[in-house]
């Protein structure tokens, strides 16, 4: 047994949203199965990546573990305590321990407040320090994320996209949180700026010992930054492993398809073939048993009848929810030669 429990544990999280189908009153009620039984743990000091395509439930999962959304069922344990049903008041001290970074640095910063005030906000909310101490702390954090502390009184519109994202990061680390949840933090940034912000996140993680949940649709970025990666499809985790194992030999056919679809800037890229056809089915009426069976090239009868559990495949550190995991030969067929190293 480890001395301390995992920093965060998600157990069988479910989030269903009721919807009215149709614009008119009296439209049929339906339920969006946004997240449907997701379990994972986040170990202290690690970076866990959540990847998947639009609508797979990664952002909803993030919002539930941050307790910004109430789960329909399941549990969230933070630092050993079950926080699933804590009231807002009771959660308040916890909020300084869990911070978020958002995708869009334009809409997540109040345009009418100077960035110094924005970054100081969590300190003020939690009544940390005197005004002078807060100012010092903000300047220190600005320096740390590569912003000029003299720009304390400037407004968000005076900064570029990359700098704004640094403001968002400064705000997230100002209370010295234990866990940061970053939802697509570099997706809105240009290539050259994205690399700067990724390096910053990497440095902060090492220097401050941060635990990070990193949500992204970009598999190359996730591989670069994360210690473990969970692949989601239609509200479920289909595979979870460290990137070396996952990217070298994905076991779940969906992970394989996703990896093979990533464009690689290499001259061999043209040889690749498309594996997945069609679109993701609707989360209002998801397929039975294994949700990927309707698009899976390996699906058999069993897959539509019995839901495969998330269990070790090939190694104790690699879990996949699949009855017929990909073999070595199938993986080699799927990937361009350079990636399957």
């Amino acid at each position: 047994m480890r001395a301390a429990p995992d920093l965060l544990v998600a157990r069988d999280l479910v989030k269903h949203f009721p919807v009215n189908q149709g614009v008119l009153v009296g439209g049929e009620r339906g339920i969006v199965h946004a997240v449907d039984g997701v379990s994972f743990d986040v170990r202290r000091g690690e970076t866990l990546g959540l990847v998947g395509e639009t609508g797979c439930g990664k952002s909803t999962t993030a919002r539930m573990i941050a307790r910004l959304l109430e789960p329909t069922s399941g549990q969230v344990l933070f630092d050993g305590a079950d926080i699933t049903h804590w009231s807002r008041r009771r959660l308040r001290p916890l909020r300084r321990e869990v911070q978020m970074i958002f995708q869009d640095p334009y809409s997540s910063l109040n345009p009418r407040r100077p960035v110094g005030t924005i970054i100081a906000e969590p300190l003020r909310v939690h009544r940390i320090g005197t005004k002078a101490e807060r100012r010092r702390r903000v300047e220190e954090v600005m320096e740390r994320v590569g912003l000029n502390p003299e720009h304390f009184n400037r407004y968000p519109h005076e900064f570029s996209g990359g700098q704004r994202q640094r403001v968002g990061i400064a705000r997230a680390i100002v209370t010295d949180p234990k866990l940061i949840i970053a939802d697509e933090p570099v997706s809105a940034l240009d290539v050259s700026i994205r690399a700067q912000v990724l390096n910053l996140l990497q440095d902060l993680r090492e220097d401050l010992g941060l635990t990070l949940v990193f949500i992204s649709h970009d598999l190359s970025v996730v591989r670069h930054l994360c210690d473990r990666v969970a692949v989601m499809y239609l509200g479920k985790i289909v595979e979870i492993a460290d990137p070396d194992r996952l990217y070298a030999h994905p076991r779940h056919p969906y992970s394989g398809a996703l990896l093979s679809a990533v464009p690689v800037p290499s001259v061999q890229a043209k040889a690749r073939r498309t594996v997945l056809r069609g679109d993701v089915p609707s989360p209002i009426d998801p397929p039975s048993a294994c949700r990927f069976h309707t698009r899976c090239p390996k699906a058999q009868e069993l897959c539509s009848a019995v839901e495969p559990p998330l269990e070790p495949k090939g190694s104790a550190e690699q879990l996949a929810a699949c009855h017929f995991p990909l073999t070595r030969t199938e993986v080699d067929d799927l990937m361009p030669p350079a990636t399957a190293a």
Partner: protein
Amino acid sequence: MAPLLEIRDLHVSFRTRDGVVRAVDGVSTSLGRGETLGVVGESGSGKSVTALTVMGLTRLPNAFVGGQIVFDGTDLLELSNEALQHVRGRRIAMIFQDPLSSLHPLYKVGWQIEEAILAHEDVSRRAARRRAIDALAAVELPNPRDLVDSYPHQLSGGMRQRAMIAMALVLNPDVLIADEPTTALDVTVQAQILELIRGLQKEFGTAVVLITHDLGVIAETADEVAVMYAGRVVEQGPLETILEAPEHPYTWGLLQSIPRLDTPRRERLRPIQGTPPSLIHAPSGCHFHPRCPYAMPMCRTIDPELLESDEGHVVACHLPVDEKRRIWRELRPREADAA
């Protein structure tokens, strides 16, 4: 043979309240028949404005356009709006990043494709409808007969982009300009759309200009690549050359700042320092010099010309060729299996 489309020293600037924005500042490039030209660059590099200018969509009261856009022997900039109508849509078609905002939400998909046909050809509505159905089938949409009567919101993002491509290709244009056609789509859908564009191009011999910020997308589709920075083409050449032997420091920076699946993990990214320049107060000399680690004093004052470095490979950089080749040998990303 003369290229199908040749852009010569194109300048596009816009008068704004903050000053004159030089969005395109001397772009020269060309596209051969049936070829795919990938145009890569970051926000504000002028790639979209160049494309819009080819389509005649920057003819605005506050815009100044200079240079030449020679298409099949005619300078499009000299054409009247009316004459341009016959080229736009029929001989040069364009698709955009967000198919939802480029399809009219209140008209059926099929009707919108029929309109495109009727605008250029004297055929009956029924004949146009038949062709719309064929076009939807050609982009591999399921049940095209039912789909002609659906509204854009009833389609998924990937299907909408297919419908846009159907609309663009229904008149069998010589050139298809695709501006970030897959940026709003998920990777698996992106792979499908890129495969579709490649397939249609092979089938109909359409030349394609593919604008993107993603070098991976370029690698999968382009024969020829133009790299743009701050309103200019800084390097252009065959795909292999740009990926394997690039000679402009900005291209090096782009290639090094992306995490890629085929290089060792956890290698630190080497970003380009600083931020892209303002197009109102663009830097003197080479626009890239403030961010270039190899800048020399002359880069600050003298604007480098786009010169041929190898056959078919042009670069705008003052560094001596040998020096550039030496630097790239040191920089080039090692592939995973070589590490």
